[in-house]
Every structure is written in C-alpha cells, then in structure tokens.
C-alpha cells in the first residue's frame, strides 16, 4: 500500500523495518539518538531500540569505522552514520585500507556487512566543509558498494538491500532531497545494486544524473518538452557496481550525452561516465559529451555565490541546448519552490 512520504521518512521506515526483522542490526554515530535524530531519520528507531541498538558515540570517525568492522566480523550488522559526509574524510583509512579490501585480501574468510550513511549538505550556507560528496573517491577503490539514492522509493529499497548485503555499503544521501515526497510502498522491498533506472524516457539526449541532479534534470526535461526536445534521464542508482549497459543503451538511442553530477566534474563520476561512453559508444555519439557539476572552488556560504556555485535545472537546460546546438531555443523557467528553507 503506497503512501505519499518523504525521503527522510522512507529512510526511517526502512531502518525500522530492517531492525525489527534482524536483531543484529545496530545504529551508531554522533547524535543518532538525540532529539533531532539525524534530520528525523533515526527518531523512530531510537524510540524502539535505544539504547541497546541505537546509541550515541564520541566523534571518532576513523575508530567508529574500525569498530563497525570488528563488530561485523562477529555477526553484527552495524549502521554508522555521518550527519555530514565531510566527516567521513577522517574515516578513509579504515574505509579504504581495511573495509574495502577485507574480503578480497583475506580470501573470503569473513565478510563485512556494514552500512555507512553519509549525508551531503547543501544550502543555508553549509559552506566549504559541510557540503562535500566523496562518492567518486569511494567508488574509485575496489571493494565498496556506493549507492546514491535520488528519491524516496529508491532510498527505502536500497536501505533494505544494504541491510541484507554482506559487503560494506556507503549510502550517499542528499540533505536537499530529504523533503522530497513520493508514493512509497509500506511493505519492505529490496532494490538491487547495479541496476540503473531510466527515470524518464526520451529520444534526443541522454542525461546521466546522480542524486539531487536527477530531480533537477527532471525539471529541465519538463521545460524542454514544451520545445519538443525529448530528454532521457538515467539514474545509475549505484556507482559501484555500475550498470554500464543501461547507460550505453540509452546513449546509443539518443546519440547525445550530458553527465549531470552532484559533485565537482574533475576526476568525478561524470568523468567516469564520459570515459565509459567514449570507450564503448563513441561512434554512436553525434556530438561531444558534456559534463555539468559544481564550479571549481569550495562551496561558498554567501547565498549569491552559493547559487552561482551549484548548477540547477536552468543550467541543465542550457547545457542540453548547447550539446544539441539549439541555441535559438528559448525556455520558460519552471516555477519551483525550494522546500528546504532552513535554518540549520
């Protein structure tokens, strides 16, 4: 029975359902049981399972990751939460040197069922160190599953899947998606890793978009539809494993590719998709590939600069028109309401 619920509610529901089913799941990290409950996502699990299975910790990001590994070795399923993705930089030693290499290096002697949540911030002056996205770094090193859910339906299914997986999974959540609502089934369901979603069918251009940029691209597609430009939107859902086939099939159909990423373009997932298509679908391309992401500077605080820093649906429209050499087209902007108004 689907209900119209938010991304944050979908996360909360997935965690509650998974924890009710599996007593080995526990959730820890700074502030997971406090009154704010990680932007509302852990309030319900804390009600039901604190303090034994939902508990607060010191801010020791690297140790917490190692602790998750040690507990996972002994049959637990830890969920470690970083309320800001940026803090995960302190945990990269454990994530890359231990977790990502564990099962391979020890030749399958043990597996690590760990879920690490990381929330990317945006808006209300989150600034240079509360807004970053490490997805490309995480997906670069073999051994970590990296999921980048862009909507409430996917985020629930991916969480249920992650909490049954035997590999370390990083869930890159986006704070600006937390209030996005959709019809979400109440029953627990699993979304497989490595299956991209064609979010919107189209014929003229493929946009491979991640996380928040999926939503921005859908707005852009609506605007362009009025001008008879048809946009296909592909959401990879997970960066590792990556569903290459869905991306390539789409590009072969449209002959145009724009990569719209919630990250800086240099050495990014957008670059990865561009390389993939250049390698495997070059002769299907009718125009050079485009990449769109954050401007090449840290995220500034001031609203004027912040707006300039992040690409939005208008920028995607312009990028698509450039790609299609349709500079003459004039597009009416959609009236959008930013549901996230702060303050933090």
């Amino acid at each position: 029975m689907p209900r119209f619920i938010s991304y944050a509610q979908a996360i909360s529901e997935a965690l509650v359902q998974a924890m009710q089913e599996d007593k080995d799941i526990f959730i820890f990290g700074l502030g997971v049981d406090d009154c704010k409950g990680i932007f509302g996502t852990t309030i319900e699990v804390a009600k039901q399972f604190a303090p034994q299975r939902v508990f607060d910790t010191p801010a020791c990001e690297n140790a917490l990751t190692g602790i998750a590994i040690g507990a996972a070795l002994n049959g637990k399923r830890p969920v470690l939460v970083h309320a800001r993705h940026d803090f995960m930089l302190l945990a990269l030693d454990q994530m890359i040197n231990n977790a990502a290499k564990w099962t391979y290096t020890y030749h399958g002697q043990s597996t690590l069922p760990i879920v690490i949540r990381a929330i990317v911030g945006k808006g209300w002056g989150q600034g240079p160190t509360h807004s970053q996205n490490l997805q490309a770094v995480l997906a670069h090193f073999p051994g970590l599953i990296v999921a980048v859910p862009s909507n409430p339906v996917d985020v629930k299914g991916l969480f249920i899947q992650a909490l049954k997986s035997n590999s370390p999974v990083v869930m890159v959540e986006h704070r600006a998606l937390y209030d996005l609502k959709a019809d979400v089934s109440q029953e627990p369901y699993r979304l497989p890793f490595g299956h991209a979603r064609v979010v919107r069918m189209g014929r003229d251009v493929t946009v491979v978009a991640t996380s928040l940029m999926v939503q921005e691209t859908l707005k852009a597609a609506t605007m362009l539809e009025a001008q008879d430009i048809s946009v296909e939107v592909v959401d990879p859902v997970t960066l590792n494993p990556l569903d290459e086939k869905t991306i390539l099939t789409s590009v072969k159909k449209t002959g145009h590719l724009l990569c719209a990423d919630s990250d800086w373009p240099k050495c990014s997932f957008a670059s990865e998709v561009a390389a993939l298509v250049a390698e495997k679908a070059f002769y299907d391309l009718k125009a050079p590939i485009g990449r769109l992401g954050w401007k090449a500077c840290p995220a500034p605080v001031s609203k004027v600069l912040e707006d300039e820093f992040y690409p939005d649906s208008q920028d995607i429209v312009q990028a698509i028109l450039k790609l299609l050499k349709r500079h003459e087209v004039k597009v009416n902007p959609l009236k959008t309401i930013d549901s996230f108004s702060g303050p933090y």
Partner: protein
Amino acid sequence: MITKEIQKKLFDLMLKIRQAEEKIVEVYAKEQTMRTPTHLSIGQEAVAAGLGLALHKNDQIFVGHRCHAAYLAKGGSLEGFFAELCGRASGICGGRAGSAHLSDHSAGIYASPILSSMIPVAVGAALSFKMDGKNQVAVAVFGDAAIEEGVFAESLNFAVAKKLPVLFLCENNLYSTYSPMSVRQPSSPIFERVRIPELDTRQIDGNDAVLVYECLSRVVDKVRRESKPYFVECLTYRIREHVGPLFDYDRGYRTKQEVEAWMTKCPIKKLKQELIHSQIMTETAIKTLEEQWQHVCDEAYKKALAAPWPTENTLLNYA
C-alpha cells in the same frame, strides 16, 4: 600459579615461532621464494607466547604488521603460514595477503599493517562481545609507533567510555623503522602517558615469557570478568632489521653493542636456562624439541613450494 606444564608450553610456543622465522631468515634472500616484505619478531616471542596461552580459544587478536608471532601463538595454521609467504593458493589467504596481513580468521587472528589500524577493529569485536553477552575478550597488539596515530587515542577513549572487554597490548621495541623513541615521543614511559583514572595500565618486561603469561592471564581474566579495558606495555627489542631478515647495526641508527646487549636478554635463552636450572627439561630434550620444530618448519616450507600457484583466472574472486 606457574606450573611446569605452563613453562614447557611457553617454551614450546616460543621455539615454534623462532624456528618458523629462522626458516624465513634462511631462505628469504637466498632463495627469493617469499616475495613479501616480512617484519620478523625474533627476540620478541615472549609477548605473543604469553598472550597466546593466556587467552581462550574463542578470544580474538588484532595485530599490525609485525604479526607472525601473534599469528602462530593464536593457533594460525603453520602450513597456511608458509604457503601464504610463498604466494601459493594454499596460503591462509590464498596468497593475497602476504606477511603483513597474515590472518587465520577461524583461529581468531586478524592482521593489517597500517600500524594502528587494527586497534579500533579489536574495540569493535569487544563491543559485539558485550552487546551479545559473550564471555570473550578482544586484544589489540601493536608497536610503540602505533600510539602516535590518532585512531589509537580514539579507540582508547571509546573503549573506556563504553567499558568494553578489550586488552591494549603495546610491544615497545624502541624503534619505528629507523626512528628512535627520542625523536618521536616524550621521555616518560608509554604506560604512564596513556593512564587515566578509568584505565589501568602497567609496564612489564616483555622478554620474560613466564612474567608476561602471569601478568596477561590476570589482566585478561579481569578484562573478561569486569568488562573493562586494560593497557599493558611490554618492553622488548627487535633483533633483526625493521623489514627483512638481516642484522642492521651497520646502518647507523643503533649500535652493535645495543643489539648484543638485548641478545643476551633473548626470551628463549632466558626460559631455557630456567627450565634446565629447575630440571624441568634437560639440554638434550630442549635440543630435540628445537630440531622437531625445525623439521616441522622445513616440511611446511617444502610443502608450500610444492603447492600450486593461484591460477590467473582467480584474480577477481571476492573482488
């Protein structure tokens, strides 16, 4: 109470570790059959042997790069050990891990070489033991340089705050590669520097196997019973180079006299004298035991060399 049996077991275990590593020394440079950087524990065997005997079978050890001694003391497979060093498919980790990651998970021994990186993993194991009401203990074994990395402090803080059954066991061998303590740490002893009111710490002679065993038996028992961490610093010394089989007193960072002085404090030599003096074992019996372990290691090495390599098509297994 230290029985003759315990003394013999400690001696036997130290000989096993020493003979396994002497086999590496013998072939490492000459035969070049082990293409994996090895960090030998020669001279430091008493810590691992005392710990190994003080633990229950289902307790777990998490150790850094100098892991051979702990691996063997915890009951890691000896054949899997040599086969792993030789990169064979029958290696304990299929030839993927090598010397610095030597781990036999079924025996409860886990190794990873970024100095401090296994310390929080031990704390996590202890957390799960406490959550599940298991009567197990986790041990983090690390060198003096590991405490210089941030995750050591993070782990200690977490373990004390959450009252977890974990033993922090520091093997202080005075050097981090070629860097002496004097350029790395304050001059006060490590066990005093990490002490806080909620954490018991002590320092012992890490070259006295009987003493290590006596101390760690009591400490492990306390950790298990009271579910709280403990920190023990064992003073010991690495006789060979940091990585590799050679002596290194020609490299200028320590003197030959210093190394030789520590060689007289060799833990095996020390216990051997005690066993003979107390008439627990005769010199002949000791010689025979030595030869037995030598033979076992020779055979395990030969078997490793005869074992098949991993096939190329297994490269991506578990990837």
